[in-house]
C-alpha cells in the first residue's frame, strides 16, 4: 500500500508510544501520532495538552493546541498554572513530543531565532512550553523532517536542552529530572542517542532511503548503529485510521 513520508513518520511515532500511559501532545503530526497510538499500541494513553487538558478525546483534528474539541469530553481541564506546576514540573509526564527549527547532534533544540538574537535573520516562535518540557518530561521524542537546514553542527540559539554538551550526567548536574531526548523521527530515518557521549545515532532508515541520503541531510558525520534496521512501513489498518478518522482532509499527512 502506498503511503506518504508524513504517514510513515506518524506511524513510527505512534509505535514508539507502545505501552505508554501519559503523553504530552503537540499540534500537527504529534497529535495524530498520539491519537493513532491510543487506538493501536497504547490503549490506556492519556493525552495531555499544555493548554490545560488531561485525558483529551478530540472528536475532530485539533487545529491548535488550544482547540475547543480538546475540552469537550476530556477527563480534566485545568489552568496553565496547574498544568505546568503539577503535571509537568511535578514529574507526571512520561513522554513528550517536541519539534524545532534546528537540532544538533545532542538533541539540543532551537525554536527561537536564526541568526543573532538581537539582530535576527528570522525570528521564530520561541519556547512556548518547550524549554520546560525538555527539562521535565521523563523522555522526549523529537519529530521533524530531515533537512540540512535543521540538522546543524551548531545551533544559533539553545531554546530547549537535550543532552547538552554530551558530558555524562550533565543533565543531572544541572538539576533536570527528565532523561532528555530518546528518539528523533524524521521523514527519511529514525535516530536514537546511544552514540558516543549521547550523540545522535542512525538506527533505522525508511524503505528506499540509503545511509548516504540521510548523511547528506545532516550537518555532521553521522554515527550508524551496527544493526541498522529498515523502518516497518505503515500497515493498512494504521493508514485507514489516519485517512478516515484522524486526518480525513490530509492536512498533515498528504505530503
Amino acid at each position, binding site marked *: 500500500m502506498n503511503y506518504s513520508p508524513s504517514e510513515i513518520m506518524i506511524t513510527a511515532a505512534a509505535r514508539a508510544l507502545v505501552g505508554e500511559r501519559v503523553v504530552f501532545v503537540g499540534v500537527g503530526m504529534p497529535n495524530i501520532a498520539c491519537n493513532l497510538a491510543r487506538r493501536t499500541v497504547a490503549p490506556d494513553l492519556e493525552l495531555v495538552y*499544555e493548554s490545560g487538558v488531561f485525558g483529551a478525546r478530540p472528536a475532530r483534528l485539533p487545529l491548535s493546541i488550544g482547540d475547543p474539541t480538546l475540552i469537550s469530553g476530556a477527563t480534566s481541564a485545568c489552568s496553565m498554572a496547574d498544568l505546568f506546576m503539577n503535571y509537568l514540573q511535578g514529574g507526571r509526564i512520561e513522554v513528550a513530543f517536541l519539534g524545532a527549527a534546528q537540532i544538533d547532534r545532542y538533541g539540543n533544540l532551537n525554536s527561537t531565532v536564526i541568526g543573532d538574537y538581537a539582530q535576527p535573520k528570522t525570528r521564530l516562535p520561541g*519556547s*512556548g512550553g518547550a524549554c520546560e518540557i525538555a527539562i521535565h518530561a521523563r523522555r522526549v521524542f523529537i519529530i521533524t523532517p530531515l533537512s540540512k537546514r535543521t540538522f546543524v553542527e551548531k545551533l544559533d540559539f539553545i531554546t530547549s536542552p537535550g543532552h547538552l554538551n554530551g558530558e555524562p550526567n550533565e543533565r543531572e548536574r544541572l538539576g533536570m529530572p527528565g532523561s532528555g531526548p530518546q528518539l528523533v523521527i524524521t521523514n527519511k530515518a529514525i535516530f536514537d542517542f546511544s552514540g558516543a557521549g549521547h550523540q545522535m545515532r542512525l538506527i533505522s532508515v525508511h524503505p528506499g532511503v540509503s545511509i548516504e541520503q540521510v548523511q547528506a541531510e545532516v550537518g555532521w558525520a553521522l554515527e550508524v548503529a551496527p544493526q541498522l534496521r529498515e523502518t516497518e512501513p505503515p500497515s493498512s489498518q494504521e493508514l485507514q485510521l489516519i485517512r478516515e478518522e484522524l486526518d480525513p482532509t490530509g492536512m498533515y499527512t498528504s505530503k
Partner: protein
Amino acid sequence: MKLSPLHAAIAEHVHDGDTIAIEGFTAFIGFAAAHEIIRQRKKNLTLCRMTPDLVYDQMIAAGCADKLVFSYLGNPGVGSLHCVRRAIEKGIPQPLEIEEYSHFGMVSRYMAGAAHLPFFPLRSYAGTDLAQANPQIRFIPNPYGEGQVAAVPPLNPDVAIIHAQRCDARGNAQLWGLVGMQKEAAFAAERVILVVEEIVDEEIIRSDPNRTLIPHMIVDAVVHQPYGAHPSYVQGYYDRDNQFYLEWDRISRDQFATEAWLDEWVYDLPDWQAYLDKLQAAESDIWQRLAPGQNLSQPVNYGIYA
C-alpha cells in the same frame, strides 16, 4: 456603576504608556477590546501575553506598542505572526523591544504578581540561552539544599482585559474550558476590564461557586459584548474562526495590506457591533458555521446546610 460601554471602559482605564495584559490561551481572546484600543489610538503600550496571537499582531501593526512581553510568537496552527516579526526584524511600523520567557516563566510571573511575591521559583531555563537573552531570568541558590533554581520577577500589569462566558452585574465572572491564566492575570493587575458574552442573575453565579474564577472586588469595569472574542472562541458559545486565522496569514504579510485591513475593519467602524454587522454582511450564516452545538454538563448538588 461598573457596567460600562466598551469605549468608555477603554477610555477610562487604558492610558498611553500602560502595561496591559489581554490573556486567554487560544480561547477568550479580547479582540473587541483590542480593536477599541487601536481605534482610540493608544500609544507606547507594553503588551504582555503568553501567545501574542493575532490580537497583538494587529495592535503592533497599528503602532500601539513599544514593547512586547511574551513566551510564544505564532499564529497557532497556521504559522508566523508577520506583523510582530516585521516590527522585530525591520522596525516596521516602529521598533519593538521584546522581553521573552517560556510559558512556565510567564505563568510564574503572573502567579508572583497575583500573590505579591518578589519573585517566583521554577525549575527551568538551565542549559539554554534564554537567561542570556533576558537578564530578568535569574538563578538563585536553593535555600534548603543543593543546586539552583530559576527565578522570574512578578508581572503586575496596569490593566488586564479578561474575556469570560458570563458574570453578574457586579462582575463576578465564571469561566469554563481552557481557563489559561485568566484568574492569575486578573489578580495580578491594578485594574481589570471584564468583557463577557452574557450578564446573568447573581443567583446563577451563586448556584455554582466553584466555577467563579474572578470575584467582583478585583473588577473595575464590566462590559457586555457578545462575540467579543471573535475570531478566537468562547467554549460553548462559538467556535474559533479558523478561516480568519488563515486569511490573516495572507493579509498580514504586507504592511500596506494590513493597514488597509485595519482601516476597513477597525478605524472606519464606530464599534464592535459594526464589526459584527460587517462580518454578517460578508457571510450571512457565520454564526451557524461557528455554532458549537450543545453538550451540557450534569448538574451537581451543593446542598443547602440551612
